[in-house]
């Protein structure tokens, strides 16, 4: 009886080993085929963008066609303004929307809200751009940073709502009860204990949301529009990095193509850094949290 038993075990474990290997190989191939294109994109953007990048790129305005040099300083500045505007509107709506859904999200209103948020996350960004064009740009008769920021915030807040709701749900119910049991009112428990406890993860969601809108072009095309000068005011057209890249890329001039690549490289690097910091934030916080 005994030898037979162990023979069977051996056979089973060899088979299991083979299956293990097979699964590992398939998974590795899949992972590599996902990473390889990304790698090529990276390499290509770096190769084309890095040489065109110089100090002037960060400090000067675009030059007229045919005149060498110039940069995208105005677009960089404009992007910063637009993303800030989008965040100022999008983050509070997103965070409080998420808090509402996680902490009070039981009734009909919450059901509808969740549905709308899900819909919004899948609306193509160009549609958001067109919508803001018709409700803001047309009535005010001007492209503006306000319109652009608004369009970006609409793209951002559903994402922040979803991530905030998810991470708040990870805080166990008995933590909330412990707060209530201290005689702390419910809204303070939510703000000072639940939201505070999940703050690192909420921040991560916000940063990913910012990274997401920083590279958006479509919603800005008919809202912030863009120009070739320093930004004047929020009520006027506002240049931005993605739109500038877009208009240079479709131009027939080599000089502009190079600048577009430099812009693309910069944009990619910034978004990459944001993502990295966001991930690190989660990572740093993990060990100390016993949820």
């Amino acid at each position, binding site marked *: 009886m005994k030898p037979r038993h162990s023979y069977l075990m051996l056979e089973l474990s060899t088979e299991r080993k083979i299956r293990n290997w097979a699964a590992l190989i398939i998974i590795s191939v899949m992972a590599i085929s996902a990473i390889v294109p990304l790698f090529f994109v990276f390499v290509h953007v770096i190769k084309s963008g890095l040489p065109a990048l110089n100090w002037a790129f960060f400090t000067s305005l675009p030059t007229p066609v045919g005149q060498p040099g110039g940069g995208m300083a105005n677009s960089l500045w404009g992007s910063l303004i637009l993303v800030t505007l989008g965040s100022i509107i999008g983050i509070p709506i997103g965070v409080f929307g998420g808090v509402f859904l996680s902490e009070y999200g039981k009734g009909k209103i919450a059901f509808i809200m969740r549905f709308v948020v899900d819909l919004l996350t899948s609306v193509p960004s160009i549609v958001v751009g067109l919508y803001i064009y018709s409700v803001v740009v047309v009535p005010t008769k001007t492209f503006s940073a306000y319109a652009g920021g608004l369009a970006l915030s609409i793209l951002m807040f559903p994402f922040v709502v979803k991530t905030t709701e998810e991470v708040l749900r990870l805080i166990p119910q008995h933590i909330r009860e412990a707060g*209530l049991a201290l005689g*702390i009112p419910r809204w303070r428990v939510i703000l000072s204990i639940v939201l505070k406890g999940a703050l690192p993860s909420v921040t991560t969601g916000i940063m990913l949301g910012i990274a997401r809108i920083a590279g958006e072009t479509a919603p800005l095309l008919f809202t912030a529009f863009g120009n070739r000068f320093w930004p004047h005011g929020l009520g006027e057209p506002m240049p931005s990095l993605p739109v500038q890249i877009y208009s240079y890329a479709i131009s027939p001039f080599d000089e502009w193509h190079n600048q577009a690549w430099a812009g693309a490289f910069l944009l990619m690097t910034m978004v990459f850094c944001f993502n990295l910091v966001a991930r690190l934030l989660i990572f740093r916080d993990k060990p100390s*949290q016993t949820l």
Partner: protein
Amino acid sequence: MINKDLVLSIKELRAGFGNAEIVKGVSMDIHRKDLVALIGPSGCGKSTFLRCLNRLHEETEGAWVKGKAELFQQDLYERGTDPVEIRAKIGMVFQKPNPFPSMSIFDNVAAGLTIRGIKKRSYVADVVEYCLKQAALWEEVKDKLKAPGTSLSGGQQQRLCIARTLAISPPVILMDEPTSALDPISTAKIEELIMELRKQVTIIIVTHNMQQAARISDKTAFFLLGELIEFGATAEVFTKPQEKKTESYITGRFG
């Protein structure tokens, strides 16, 4: 006549979820500095009963409460009573240690004060030190008050939670199996702590550990299927119970 020693007076308390009645008409009086142990088989409604006393039961969906429960002659369930106020007077320690995440040891103990608006630093620091000493945790954490509360061991976390409750200085503390998730040494420490606290606070403790009930409590209440079967001096309940059911439970025939 007002009986100053009567802390909690519970009359025909019923509670449940939806159609299910879990606590079926419990009446009991608890006096100042009593240390009452609640015993009974799993699922008999001890936690539900306890959570009615600090109005935490109603936080669960579908929960309802009927009957009367008075704290110092004030009806807890009277219309217009603010549950927030009740909870500040009746502290609670849970089965699973649950320090607030992303909060330091200091902030955990201070939470009940600071979040409710008491910000004076020197005062808060004094209270934190005092409560950590009372909870026999001060010596272990005094050099790392800024470390996260969750970085402590399970037993230390539970003492932290007790300190957190002490900080709002409630006259009554409810404990729901506070040692069931802990090792024997941590359990012994918490028991010692409870014995110390009972000199000042009225304590109601749920426990599945008969020895623990016998060791620390001076009154024992036996629950079965949502009813209070017997309530009396611990020594009596354990040595010559009035009810057959109590005797069977204590001698281990069910539960």
